[in-house]
Every structure is written in structure tokens, then in C-alpha cells.
């Protein structure tokens, strides 16, 4: 049994060492990317209904990362001020804060989520808070549709 323990410890140490010395190249998250073409975020956002349910691949600077669980990133569009959110399943992919400002290629299924009025108000309130603006829920009159990429993978270019 001692030999079994020693062997197990050795295997664990080797695995951890290999893990620590992981490659420093492009960092792949989840399943990476495999779609043939990268599309412009502006094209996606200009006609969002046309891509619902389709696998899309976008490229841009990561300008926002979920602070709590690393479960989403915002990718900057080729149009100023416009972003697209890539949401991944909690724990399946964890985006670190360090990728803020890095060039990211992300892939997943384009989805539309129809929000209720209550959800719309919450989203608007959160957005106003983030922007440091006053929020008046009376100004919200229509329900919002949230478009996002249900992410399956991403690649962050090495620096």
C-alpha cells in the first residue's frame, strides 16, 4: 500500500507540474472556435433577428468581464459604443479579469431573450447605475429583447 500511495503522490505531483507549465500561447476557453468565418459585430447587431439560433463567431476587444463568476464578456464592436455580450454557462468557462483589453475571438449561438417588464426595468436600472445616471422606471414603456451569444468557446490572442 505504501508503494501505491507513493505512486499516486508522484502522479499527482507530475500532473500539477505539467498543469503549472501549461503553454503560454493563445489561451483557449471552452471548445475554442471552429466556425469558418468571423463576422463583424456591427453586422450582427444591425440585423439581430436574422441570426437567431445560428452559430456566429465574432472578434474584438474584451471591454467587460463578469466580476462575480467570469461567466460573460463584452466584446467591442467595430462601431464605437456598441458591444456584444458572450454569456457562458457558469463554471463551464471562467473568463479572468486579465483579458480586459485583449483581443478575443468568441463563438456561440446567437440568442434572443424576451424580457418581462419587470426584468426590463431591472436591466435598465442596472445599466443606469453602471453609467452613473438617474433612473426613472416610468420612462420604461416597452419590454426589451436581449440579444447575446450563448458562448461555447473563445480564444484570447497571446500578448
Amino acid at each position: 500500500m505504501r508503494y501505491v500511495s507513493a505512486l499516486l503522490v508522484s502522479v499527482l505531483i507530475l500532473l500539477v507540474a505539467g498543469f503549472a507549465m501549461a503553454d503560454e500561447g493563445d489561451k483557449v476557453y471552452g471548445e475554442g472556435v471552429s466556425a469558418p468565418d468571423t463576422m463583424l459585430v456591427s453586422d450582427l447587431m444591425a440585423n439581430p433577428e436574422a441570426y437567431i439560433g445560428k452559430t456566429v463567431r465574432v472578434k474584438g476587444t474584451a471591454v467587460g468581464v463578469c466580476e462575480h463568476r467570469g461567466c460573460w464578456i463584452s466584446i467591442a464592436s467595430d462601431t464605437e459604443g456598441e458591444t456584444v455580450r458572450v454569456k457562458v454557462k457558469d463554471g463551464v468557462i471562467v473568463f479572468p479579469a486579465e483579458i480586459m483589453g485583449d483581443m478575443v475571438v468568441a463563438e456561440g449561438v446567437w440568442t434572443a431573450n424576451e424580457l418581462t417588464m419587470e426584468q426590463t426595468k431591472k436591466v435598465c436600472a442596472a445599466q443606469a447605475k453602471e453609467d452613473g445616471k438617474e433612473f426613472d422606471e416610468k420612462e420604461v414603456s416597452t419590454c426589451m429583447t436581449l440579444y447575446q451569444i450563448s458562448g461555447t468557446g473563445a480564444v484570447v490572442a497571446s500578448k
Partner: protein
Amino acid sequence: MEMRTFRKWCRTFHRELGFLAVGLTLVYAVSGIAVNHAHHWDANYERTLERYSIEPPGTGPTAEIGPVIMERLAITAPVKSTWRAGEAEFQIFLEGGGIDVNLVTGEVVRHGFAKRPLLFDLNFMHLNSGKAPWTGIADVYGGMLIVMALTGIFLVRGRKGLTGRGGVLMALGFLLPIVFAVVSRGGG
């Protein structure tokens, strides 16, 4: 196999695997508590926030105001990239943080983050962010826990063992998750 021999094997497995599991159990237990409260605090990073002002750069074209902002901020750290987040918002990304500039008011918010020593790595392992080869290690560890749990049942005989208090405690251990599952399902 005689019960006595079986018990001896259980003791041996439980003891050896138990020692081996101490480190990994601490990794999962400590980070488990940390990530369990991810909505209360950032378990991975220590974050800083600093506010100050510069002369407002105005909302002109990005190509023109970009260099002006850089000059007024006098940034010495290497810049990763910049982003015009809106008409009045300009973001600068640096290693370990970033700077948000309000182009109209000149208000600057500098935010930084640094990995929490040790805890970041524990969470990284717990959440299996690195995937393979940690998946293999976690699987082996899971198997070890199963063996330890099962062998542990037979370590003690008599009234403190399975037929006595040990059995009652084991039943409680089963009951707790079952009751929780039933109650939480009932509550939708």
C-alpha cells in the same frame, strides 16, 4: 473474504487515501466556501478604485481626443488598448486594471485588480478553469473520496459503529440532502 480481513483492508485504504486527500480536501473546502459566496465578494481578485479629475477632453472624434487624454492622464504603464464606450465615455485598458474617463466632466475612475494570493489558485483548481489535466486529478480525488466514504463505514464496530451511533449519523448524512432536494423541488 472474512470480515476481519475486510475490515483490515478498509482501515488500510482509508488511512493511506486519507493522508493523500488532506491537501486536496483543503483546496476544495476553502475555495468551496469562497466561491459559494461569489455574489457577496470577489473571491479571485482584490479590487481597488480611485477617483480624480482631469481637464475635460471634450467629446470630439476619438482619433483627436485619444492622444489628449493620454497626455492629461500622464500614464506611465503600458496601454493594452482603448475603447470609446459612448459619446462621453472613454476606457483605457492596462495590465491589472483600467481607467474610465468621462469626456464631458473630466472625471476619472481608475480601477485595479490583483489576484488574491493562494485563493485565486485554489478557486482556479476548484472551478477546474484550467480543464485537463486537472480534470484527471479531480476525478481521481472524487474516486478517493468514494473509497474513503465506503471504507469508513466499516472502520468501527459495536455501538459506535454502523449498527449504533455511526449508523444514525450516516442516516442523517443521507437525510439532509434528500430533505433539501424534496423541499427545494416542492418550492419550485
